């Protein structure tokens, strides 16, 4: 199959899922006729009509709340929240219900639903359009939180999310939507949720990242390679439940670790990575683990966004400090 970008890959997965399973419905603000503000739902409305591709009124709580109801009654809703900056409106439905139905009904009711959201900065967007809030969801028991990093894993993980019997928060790094293309196979494929991938092998230092920030880690690794420093990169892909075994295995090999993410540092995903490494590989560490993350401030409006977002330069400096410890 031809090389496609991430926006197209997610769109492809939605087409494939709606095609093979009548229970799949897509809902959200502007997902129908407008085909989504990022055109992720392109072609769906024309193909499947407004019963399965639902332009909803402007109400995030009702979008997620009714998706819960639909999944209780046998459908597989994929709801889109237009930007993560607006997902808070729906948070009581997510935390109070989506995450709890299986537990409180002791397995009698479970919710095969997906909540899709573009997240993160780097596209010069408006205020409230650049947030990276995966930690809130990761902190909520009963949720799976998936963040793809490229076209191929985006498509495969979305299929896994749709097939999952429980709610999956699927965060799309919007800075990567059209950043690069990748070959995807003709056949539909899935990727196990909860499994990290080593995308680059090296023995000197482990870089742990995910989503859009992974680009900074890769760029840093390539530059460090020229200085004969060999980085191993772990792409988490699922931030919760986190695959710490893959991280720990890598850190046992390298003895050093730098975590890179654009979400805020305080109680961020990186904090959990550090804790798991401490619990499982403390005696293998040659240096303290470093975090290259967004600062603990609201993501700045775009004139100063670059001071906030991790870049390769910051990752390189952190790696060198770790290596020279």
């Amino acid at each position, binding site marked *: 199959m031809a090389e496609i970008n991430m926006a197209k890959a997610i769109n492809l997965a939605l087409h494939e899922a709606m095609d093979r399973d009548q229970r799949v419905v897509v809902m959200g603000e502007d997902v129908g006729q*407008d085909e989504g*503000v990022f055109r992720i739902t392109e072609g769906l409305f024309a193909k499947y009509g407004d019963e399965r591709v639902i332009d909803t009124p*402007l109400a995030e709580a009702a979008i997620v709340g009714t998706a819960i109801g639909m999944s209780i009654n046998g459908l597989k809703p994929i709801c889109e929240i237009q930007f993560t900056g*607006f997902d808070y409106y729906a948070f009581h439905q997510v935390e109070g219900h989506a995450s709890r139905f299986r537990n409180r009904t002791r397995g009698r009711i479970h919710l095969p639903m997906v909540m899709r959201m573009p997240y993160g900065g780097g596209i010069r*967007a*408006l205020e409230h359009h650049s947030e990276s809030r995966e930690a809130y969801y990761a902190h909520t028991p009963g949720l799976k939180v998936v963040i793809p990093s490229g076209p191929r894993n985006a498509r495969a993980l979305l299929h896994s999310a749709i097939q999952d019997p429980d709610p999956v928060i699927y965060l799309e790094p919007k800075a990567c939507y059209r950043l690069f293309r990748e070959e995807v196979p003709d056949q539909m494929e899935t990727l196990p949720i909860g499994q990290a991938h080593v995308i680059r092998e090296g023995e000197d230092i482990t870089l742990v990242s995910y989503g859009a920030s992974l680009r900074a880690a890769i760029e840093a690794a390539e530059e460090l390679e020229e200085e004969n420093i060999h980085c191993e990169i772990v792409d988490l892909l699922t931030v919760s439940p986190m695959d710490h075994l893959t991280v720990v295995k890598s850190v046992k090999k390298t003895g050093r670790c730098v975590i890179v993410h654009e979400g805020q540092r305080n109680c961020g995903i990186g904090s959990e990575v550090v804790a798991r490494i401490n619990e499982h590989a403390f005696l293998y560490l040659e240096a303290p683990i470093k975090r290259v993350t967004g600062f603990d*401030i609201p993501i700045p409006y775009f004139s*100063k966004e670059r001071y906030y977002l991790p870049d390769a330069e910051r990752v390189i400096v952190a790696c060198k400090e770790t290596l020279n410890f």
Partner: protein
Amino acid sequence: MPRTVIEIAQKIEYLSILDENANLDKSLEPDIPAEQLKTMYKYMLLGRRTDERMLKMQRQGRLGTFPQSAGHEAISMGSVINIKKDDWHVPAYRELAGMLYRGWPIENIILFWNGFEEGTRPPEEVNDLPICVPIASQLPHAVGIGMAMNIKKEKNVVMTYFGDGATSEGDCHEALNFASVFKAPVVFVCLNNQYAISVPLERQMACETVAQKAIAYNMPGIRVDGNDVLAVYVATKEAVDRARAGGGPSLIEGLTYRLTPHTTADDPKRYRSDATTDEWMKKEPLIRFAKYLQNKGVMSAKDLEDMEVEVDTLVKAAVTKAEEMAKSEELLNPYNIIDHVFADVPQFLQEQRDELGEYMKRENDRKAKKNAKKSETGALS
């Protein structure tokens, strides 16, 4: 135990005073002093021209994505003119004309849409909140301000704004209910422009008007022609007077049409026809108001032209000022992103501030090296 009817006495009115052809219903015409009429027109025009200039700047890459306000000037100005400086103005994001009237410098508006938080700092002399992006979330704030007025025995009012899409959000209904229960002196002004990005009004709600939602909250509700500044004036003046006298909140729906895309990133051709937009363009608020002012002898054709020139000068000067400010040391200071999060920077954040300092130092070193190299090669060639 019969099945009976509960009489809800309330009726929903519709008000139009100055129609699209500038025909005036004299019996309904408000008595507005000439100077005030001129002021209203001036800020409607200033809003429109600023909006147009910002669109050009956005197309030239000199401004970020922004939501246009064109077409909403009558609702904004017809209402805001009825409140005083120490009353509160709580906007959504298409009340540009009203914000400028309240004293927001044009350059602040430009700076905001150009990615500077400095643009959101309200002017000192008025009680204004900045624009609010998350839909309907400003409405409970407006009500809280009003509730505080009741507790503090202040004789002020709050004028707040939202769109038709906002009426679907829980925050909107929760705010209306609180205002009603606590008799908060709040005037809710809905800019019903019939579109929430691509979603048309009939998909947003299955009832005929936004105004009728007032019935459920036991407050007066009225729909007015949102392109008729006189109708907006009359309806909001009644609401302000009522609120100030202790009569509680009101809901005013201004029916208009979003003449522009939702934001500069939107393409309305995907979901609506240009023909309808063209039809509504004929009903836009400025032309009929200018005719009214002329017919009434408040402004001559020459006066209107002069005002165009005056407004154009103001906008041009503001663009220059905004672009200068954007290059100023004060606004470029990277520590601005950290220093306003708390009143005092806590220790953990101070450490991150130091990290940013190191980052800046490395960046400056690299720049200096690069420049040195450049001048070296320059000297050689």
